């Protein structure tokens, strides 16, 4: 069985790089930055695809992963579609031996699973475009504590935080209202404070 090019290690590296990615500059600069990031992760990007309705196609097989971007897109649209591809690589499932994901400007999902994945991709891509990753649940772009059966005060707090993160991602998938609420600055800041209280590891110190 030939494995898909996009592996967990690639996702981990992508998450690491994404957290330190500058969010300033024009749409052209930011799109170029995301393209370089993708190419660094081994994703071939082609911005000359003659796509009519679809904005981009992410195609992965054992031969490699490629992102085909519609040539007709404006700079802003191209920036947004790159953000969607990055988000798709992070949260989407690409199955071996070959899989493809289509990126549209609007909604096109047919099954519940597709709708949920698209919602998370759109939310994370929006946060990336806005230069505010904290507007999306942290597990989507960072390593977080996990929900476990823990009994010491410190591990219990971390486990509680893991549970909250799990709950957050679940509702982020399913609820439009939660996604809007989660993207608010005051909510992001409040969640950040909760994370600091419950997890006093060096990352939050």
């Amino acid at each position: 069985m030939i494995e898909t090019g996009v592996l967990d290690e690639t996702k981990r590296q992508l998450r690491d790089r994404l957290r330190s990615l500058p969010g300033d500059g024009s749409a052209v600069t930011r799109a170029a930055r995301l393209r370089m990031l993708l190419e660094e992760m081994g994703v071939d990007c082609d911005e000359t695809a003659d796509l009519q309705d679809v904005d981009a196609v992410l195609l992965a097989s054992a031969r490699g992963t490629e992102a085909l971007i519609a040539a007709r897109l404006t700079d802003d649209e191209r920036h947004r579609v790159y953000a969607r591809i990055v988000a798709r690589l992070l949260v989407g499932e690409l199955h071996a031996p070959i899989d493809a994901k289509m990126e549209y400007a609007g909604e096109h999902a047919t099954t519940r699973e597709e709708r949920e994945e698209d919602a998370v991709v759109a939310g994370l891509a929006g946060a990336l475009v806005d230069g505010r990753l904290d507007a999306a649940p942290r597990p989507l772009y960072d390593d977080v504590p996990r929900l476990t059966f823990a009994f010491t005060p410190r591990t219990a707090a971390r486990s509680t935080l893991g549970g909250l993160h799990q709950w957050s991602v679940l509702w982020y998938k399913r609820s439009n209202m939660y996604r809007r609420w989660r993207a608010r600055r005051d909510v992001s800041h409040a969640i950040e404070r909760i994370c600091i209280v419950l997890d006093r590891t060096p990352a939050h110190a």
Partner: protein
Amino acid sequence: MPERDEVQIARWDAIRNRIGGELRGMRGHGRSQAQLAWELDELGFHVSQSMVSRYEQGQGEVPLTLERMVGWALCCDALSSEHLRQVLELGGYVLPWTRGDMAQFDNLLRRYRALSRPDQMVLRRRMLWHLLGLHPRGEQELSA
């Protein structure tokens, strides 16, 4: 016509009838020769309707290349079919994909059949390269 070796001509003569039969089976009844020729042309193969007809009748003079065999099957949604397996075996070609892998390629083609024609062609062209293991950029660089 490019000069060909006698051995190659003899081998092709020996297998072209059987290959023709498999090509007919691949196309099935739901797709006309004209439609197949048009789809092959869109994918970048210079195959006319009369060539489709000649190959299917075992009268094609030039040996069918690996690229054309795979493109033929891609256009017929027959990548996982026994017909392609037979054609490849007769031609002496091996692809690094299992029958299950090829079924996944067929599933992907079916899944995105609702796409507009131009979008489907972009996807199909790229899938062809993934099947054959050549990057389109390599082709561009060669022609540059």
